[in-house]
């Protein structure tokens, strides 16, 4: 039923981006959404010393990463003491297998899911379906995306690429819901259908926003209540999360929560903040009998080795970087062809998939810095993009490349061109001679400059360079020469 992201060739970024740009509906849907999210975020931080809060957020995450292996062990100990079973998975397939094995042991055929980007990364739905287990998304956005047999186009708002008409049409086709422009009606219809599914589900699968080592607590942030239903109604709850989601202390959750919801959607807080520390106790009347946590590595431990790339593990998945990204706003989430789109995807996916496959992502940025400016945990996204560009071409002998597939974009011709550029610009004399020549021959300047002049007229070389103008100016003034 669901499309496996494996069927998407990440390298085909250009045609997908081009198609999105030429689709006015997609452009309008994203633009409208992004404009709203940007202004809401701004309002939400109005009363705050945002820069200090971002520093605290970054430091809390750094504190956790600095002791990552110890904290994971502590988390496991606490969870186990609380009665929650802990599993470890090297990669997505191992994680899928763990989930499937739990389902098989419980003879579970129906899985209801809360929103989880790690499960998207694992392609869990696809895996479960192949093993005869129905996996139904219950977050409304994820539900819509699943009905459409698509993947999420945004990590917080999965169906952001669709407008009401498109969703109404889809729900009509797939569920028989009457066509309507009334969002409340469409929402109520989905509620009705999903409530049945909740009642019958054997297992609930959710993600985790923060896992607290100190107390053995899994924290989930959500607005709809589907996360609470997923983690409460079925007799078994399986949470899947990346190993980087651990925080040391319960208090650390406070600044991260304050940053997460405001950065993501401009909310002071989401409707529900759900903190789970154990399965149903003997005297309790609801909640799952079994709770499992699957800790997924999937490339994270590799990123952890590198002093710079490590910063990507601070990410709390708020999506603010994509909300503020002018490239994302133009091409939308699907163009990237990756689980995580937008700026954070551009720096995460190369580690997960290798630079060969993600070759076009690090360059698909004007390095405008909007993502880094809004990141609640101060991930220097633009710097990391530059780092990955360097890795793509093996461009720095002082800092050997590390990411899988490094050097795959290096071309002899391009490297030669840059060596030529270097030769010209490392000598003031050569440069002056070159620019003198260029300005004198400006009449011969071509009017067409490849991709540049597709959308712009060619810039015109000046008659004389600033070097020359300055000399003239200083001669006139009888001023200094340097």
């Amino acid at each position, binding site marked *: 039923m669901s499309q496996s992201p494996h069927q998407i060739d990440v390298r085909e970024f250009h045609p997908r981006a081009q198609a999105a740009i030429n689709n006015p509906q997609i452009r309008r849907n994203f633009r409208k959404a992004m404009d709203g999210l940007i202004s809401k975020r701004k309002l939400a931080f109005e009363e705050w010393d945002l820069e200090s809060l971002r520093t605290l957020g970054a430091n809390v995450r750094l504190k956790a990463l600095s002791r990552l292996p110890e904290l*994971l062990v502590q988390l496991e100990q606490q969870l186990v003491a609380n009665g929650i079973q802990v599993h470890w998975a090297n990669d997505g397939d191992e994680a899928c297998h763990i989930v499937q094995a739990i389902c098989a042991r419980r003879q579970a055929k129906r899985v209801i899911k809360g929103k989880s980007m790690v499960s998207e990364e694992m392609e869990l739905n696809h895996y479960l379906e192949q093993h005869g287990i129905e996996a139904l998304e219950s977050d409304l956005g994820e539900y819509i995306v699943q009905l459409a047999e698509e993947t999420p186009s945004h990590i917080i708002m999965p169906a952001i690429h669709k407008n009401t008409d498109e969703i109404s049409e889809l729900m009509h086709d797939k569920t028989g819901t009457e066509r309507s422009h009334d969002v409340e009606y469409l929402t109520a219809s989905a509620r009705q259908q999903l409530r049945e599914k909740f009642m019958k589900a054997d297992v609930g699968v959710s993600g985790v926003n923060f896992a607290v080592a100190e107390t053995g607590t899994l924290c989930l942030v959500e607005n709809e209540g589907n996360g609470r239903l997923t983690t409460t109604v079925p007799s078994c709850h399986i949470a899947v999360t990346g190993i980087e989601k651990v925080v040391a202390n319960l208090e650390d959750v406070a600044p991260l929560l304050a940053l997460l919801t405001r950065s993501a959607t401009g909310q002071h807080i989401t409707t529900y903040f759900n903190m789970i520390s154990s399965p149903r106790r003997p005297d309790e009347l609801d909640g799952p009998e079994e709770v499992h946590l699957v800790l997924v590595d999937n490339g994270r431990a590799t990123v952890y080795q590198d002093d710079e790339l490590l910063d990507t593990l601070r990410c709390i998945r708020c999506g603010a970087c994509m909300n503020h990204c002018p490239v994302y706003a133009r091409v939308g989430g699907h163009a990237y062809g990756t689980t995580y789109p937008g700026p954070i995807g551009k720096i995460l996916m190369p580690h997960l998939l290798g630079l060969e496959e993600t070759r076009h992502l690090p360059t698909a940025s004007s390095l405008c810095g909007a993502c880094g400016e809004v990141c609640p945990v101060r991930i220097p996204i633009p710097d990391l993009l530059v780092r990955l560009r360097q890795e793509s071409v093996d461009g720095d002998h002082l800092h050997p490349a590390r990411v899988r597939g490094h050097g795959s974009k290096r071309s002899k011709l391009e490297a030669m061109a840059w060596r030529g550029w270097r030769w010209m610009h490392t000598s003031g004399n050569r440069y002056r001679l070159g620019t003198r020549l260029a300005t004198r021959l400006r009449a011969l300047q071509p009017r067409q400059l490849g991709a540049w002049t597709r959308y712009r007229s060619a810039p015109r070389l000046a008659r004389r360079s600033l070097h020359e103008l300055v000399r003239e100016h200083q001669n006139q003034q009888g001023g200094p020469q340097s």
Partner: protein
Amino acid sequence: MSAREQILQRLRQRQGQPLQAPPCDFSVMEHRDWSPEEKLERFERTLESVHGEVHRVNRAQWMDRLADVLSTRGARNLLASTSHWIGQALRDAQREDLPPLLTYDRPIEGWKPELFNSVDASITSTRGGIAETGSLILWPTTDEPRLMSLVPPVHIAVLDARELYPTFLDAMRAQHWAAGMPTNALLISGPSKTADIEQTLAYGVHGPKELIVLVIEDEPDSSP
């Protein structure tokens, strides 16, 4: 070697500079020195901004207000606790202007369809509120299980104004959460909502469509 050992080994054998935990200065989140009235006013404003409904009541008349709230909504029943003072008071009162009281007295497996389809409203206690975010703190218990605040379309919560904390951080510190967490702890800040269809807000997508908070403000000299 197990996946656990492989992952931990990769992390422990990290190359690169040794990592140091930076100091974490929480002061940006502290010292919201709001007076009780400021806290309540902020709680009200924030919760109402997300479609929550707040009623200030005193201990003598909260049940009257509850009856109003329920009758305007035509609630045919009300799910309430048995041992908490709220449930007890309701049951003792035997008021005719209140709908029949339901009891969550058996495991969910025994009455799932009924809870999902036939309960119109529920009332629960809270462990306090958070002024900054307009949030209720709930630690569900045997008496007030987790789904009580989630499945019925109307959730009514009773909050003692004296238990309003400025921030989440203040609340977890004052109540010593880190010393022991319950099975499930919740912050609830408004009715269930979604904006997944074209950023248009719709309420009650999975949980309650309405959240109504009765804030009990006591006279200065009265005690609980």
